[in-house]
């Protein structure tokens, strides 16, 4: 395959975004077609690329003497598989957006944002070195900022966009330090060259390497919204729902996992051994548990899904951190399956929201099954996949993760099992409350089936949610991720435990929520904590207020008062004061001058004659 195609997969969306932003802002119709066209083309190129051989392309981006920063594409199994996910989900989201954003005045800007995102995400996936990855890492953050803040007239959307960007910046702070430290240790930014540098690691203390890896993980912490930097993701649901599906469920938030896996693949799994990997795994586990708990008490359909995304991302991070033989592959496999069914769920929720006239509270929905059967069926498929019901795609990947956890960290395994119980519980809650029973709100009662342009992406995604886990499909689309390490049999204790968890989850969900019009757990103290998201936001608000703002005020005061007023202002005032004094003396009054003159003489005589 010619180089041109490899580059065009990166540059096509950029061109699309640039052209839309610069030329087509007023011509939304053409802009939309252009963006969708570029997404379709990249998807085709990604498919074609599946058959190409591994290689690395590079151009020098910045040169300083003997030092170069390169922009390069690395094309291997990992990036090819990830590209299928990115461009595939991307294309479907583009299509869905065609219908979803039909009424929006600023849809040209919206599609430009989507194109920028496709560009940046492609860049992350194909990045051949850490600096380039950081470049696109920042760019996805930026496009996410743009898209979350699409409806910037709303305060909540503007704040959410800002929050997402800033929290990601905090993660990137660590990420960049990590990159620089790894550069110091390994001597290279390029992934291809890292494996040659492993000897260098042996010379350096493993502690230093561990710290560097953890700092790099900070990037994933922000981007993949792990505790404690997870707070931006639920707020990011202020953006249009297709954006949530693409960026905040399927692709961008998974970039952290992808990056860790890329690092593991390049520099060897050794650097994840020791405290670094353990910390990463525990953070993943804790995130998945906390997020699952929070998800049980959310009323906003998108927030339920957002917390479930957090929870699933925690799974993936945990798997990568386990640093077992195939655990990271399991994590990546989960990323791949999760992308399809979570995008499906989000788009489904988008369709529901669209049908219900932008009602997002599940307690005001209900009975949607009668009114929009097709959507409901696809949503049910997605829910089942997320619950990991055999033989949907989620099942395969989740079992692998549980298997790996069981193998490496039994404590985390049990933690994961709790999550595996909670997931079916809250998804059952969501499905029962929103789709079954009777309509509880005007929106839900007036809901109609969504237009076909929305339905087709849903069909396609539910198709993928069903088949993506089967070996032939997985082998074709994502050869790097798929490592079935065991057969699922009733003799396997892990399988039995997870099956039990699934049944308990679904059963309790049905038991608690069947036929209810309000959440029966709402008054419970423990569930109140879940509802309030463990008060993370409140604590952070206080922290920000105390540290950032208070320090800023104090420093500003000091700066203004001491440096500005006392030191400098003092100088200025002295100068102008003395000047004023002399100006006053300069009265033009002859007698005044003579008087001063005489007084001066007296003084001089006194000083020279008498004062000695």
């Amino acid at each position, binding site marked *: 395959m010619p180089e041109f195609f490899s580059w065009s997969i990166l540059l096509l969306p950029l061109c699309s975004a640039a052209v839309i932003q610069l030329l087509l802002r007023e011509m939304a119709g053409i802009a939309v077609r252009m963006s969708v066209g570029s997404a379709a083309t990249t998807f085709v190129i990604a498919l074609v690329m599946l058959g190409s051989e591994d290689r690395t392309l590079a151009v020098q981006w910045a040169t300083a003497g003997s030092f170069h920063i390169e922009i390069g594409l690395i094309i291997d199994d990992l990036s090819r598989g990830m590209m299928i996910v990115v461009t595939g989900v991307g294309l479907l989201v583009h299509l869905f957006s065609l219908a979803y954003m039909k009424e929006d005045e600023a849809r040209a800007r919206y599609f430009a944002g989507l194109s920028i995102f496709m560009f940046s995400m492609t860049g992350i996936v194909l990045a051949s070195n850490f600096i380039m990855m950081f470049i696109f890492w920042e760019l996805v953050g930026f496009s996410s900022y743009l898209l979350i803040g699409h409806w910037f007239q709303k305060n909540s959307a503007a704040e959410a966009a800002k929050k997402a960007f800033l929290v990601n910046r905090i993660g990137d702070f660590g990420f960049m330090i990590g990159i620089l430290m790894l550069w110091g240790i390994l001597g290279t930014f390029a992934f291809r060259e890292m494996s040659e540098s492993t000897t260098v690691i042996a010379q350096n203390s493993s502690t230093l390497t561990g710290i560097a890896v953890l700092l790099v993980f900070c990037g994933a912490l922000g981007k993949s919204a792990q505790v404690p930097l997870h707070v931006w993701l639920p707020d990011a649901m202020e953006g249009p729902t297709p954006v949530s599906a693409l960026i905040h469920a399927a692709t961008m938030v998974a970039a952290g996992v992808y990056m860790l896996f890329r690092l593991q693949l390049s520099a060897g799994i050794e650097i994840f051994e020791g405290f670094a990997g353990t910390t990463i795994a525990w953070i993943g586990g804790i995130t998945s548990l906390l997020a699952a708990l929070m998800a049980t008490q959310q009323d906003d359909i998108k927030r339920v899904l957002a917390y479930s995304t957090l929870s699933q991302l925690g799974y993936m991070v945990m798997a990568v951190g386990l640093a077992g033989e195939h655990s990271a592959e399991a994590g990546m496999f989960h990323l791949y399956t999760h992308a399809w069914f979570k995008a499906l769920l989000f788009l489904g929720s988008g369709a529901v929201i669209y049908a219900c006239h932008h009602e997002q509270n599940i307690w005001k929905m209900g009975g949607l099954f009668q009114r929009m059967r097709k959507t409901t069926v696809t949503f049910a498929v997605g829910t089942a996949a997320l619950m990991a019901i055999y033989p949907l795609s989620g099942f395969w990947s989740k079992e692998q993760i549980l298997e790996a956890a069981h193998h490496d960290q039994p404590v985390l395994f049990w933690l994961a099992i709790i999550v595996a119980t909670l997931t079916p519980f809250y998804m059952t809650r969501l499905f029962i409350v929103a789709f079954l029973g009777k309509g509880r709100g005007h929106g839900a009662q007036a809901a109609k089936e969504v237009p076909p342009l929305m339905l087709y992406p849903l069909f396609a995604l539910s198709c993928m949610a069903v088949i993506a886990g089967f070996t032939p499909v997985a082998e074709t689309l994502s050869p790097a991720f798929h490592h079935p390490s065991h057969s699922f049999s009733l003799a396997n204790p892990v399988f039995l435990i997870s099956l039990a968890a699934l049944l308990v989850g679904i059963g309790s969900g049905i038991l608690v929520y069947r036929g209810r019009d309000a959440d029966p757990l709402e008054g419970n103290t423990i569930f109140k904590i879940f509802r309030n998201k463990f008060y993370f936001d409140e604590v952070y608000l206080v922290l920000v207020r105390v540290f950032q703002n208070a320090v800023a005020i104090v420093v500003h005061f000091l700066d203004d008062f001491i440096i500005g007023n006392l030191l400098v202002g003092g100088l200025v005032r002295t100068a102008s004061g003395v000047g004023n004094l002399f100006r006053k003396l300069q009265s033009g009054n002859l*007698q005044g001058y003579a008087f001063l003159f*005489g007084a001066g003489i007296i003084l001089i*005589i006194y000083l020279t*004659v008498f004062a000695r």
Partner: protein
Amino acid sequence: MPVFFYAFAAVSVIGAIALVCFRNPVSSAISMVGSFVGLAALFIGLNAYFVGIIQILVYAGAIMVLFLFIIMLLDLKAPSAFKRSSPLILVGGLIIPFSFVIQLSTVLSEVRGGDPKALPLQDAAESFYDHERDPDNQSEIYNSLQKKSLPDVNLIGLTLFGHKGDNASIRTPGYNFPLQIIGVLLLVATVGVVALSLKRKQSKSGGPES
């Protein structure tokens, strides 16, 4: 002798006080002359006959006439033009001179050599004796000193222009050059006064043409 001193000192001080106190500038000018005459008498009492004479000639003659002339020209003799200074200035204007006098008198008590001696004219004549000349053909200064009169015009001239030989009877750096400078100064002053007194008329015929 002290009687004359006190008399003329009183004349000059009273004249000075009158100069300050008279409201009419003409009276002030006249009292200034009185003061200067007294001063000239003091000069003469100090054996500085030449200086005393030019004090009278220049100040009491020329300068006073100039002042009077200007006062007449500007028509300022009417006492109605007088304006009293503010009390503050009055007080300040008295305190400063007063403190000056106090300082002065404090210093004066420490000045030594107050004893006045008559000038030893005949002894001084010896230092002007020129051995290369005939005894009858000695210089004017020598002759005058021999006659017990002080030839101060000649002596000032000698100081101004310096000696011909290396007669060390008088220490002087020679004032030829300063004298010429003074001449130039007077010339410049003359020209300047003329220039200042010219009336400018072109301002009425519009702005500068260039």
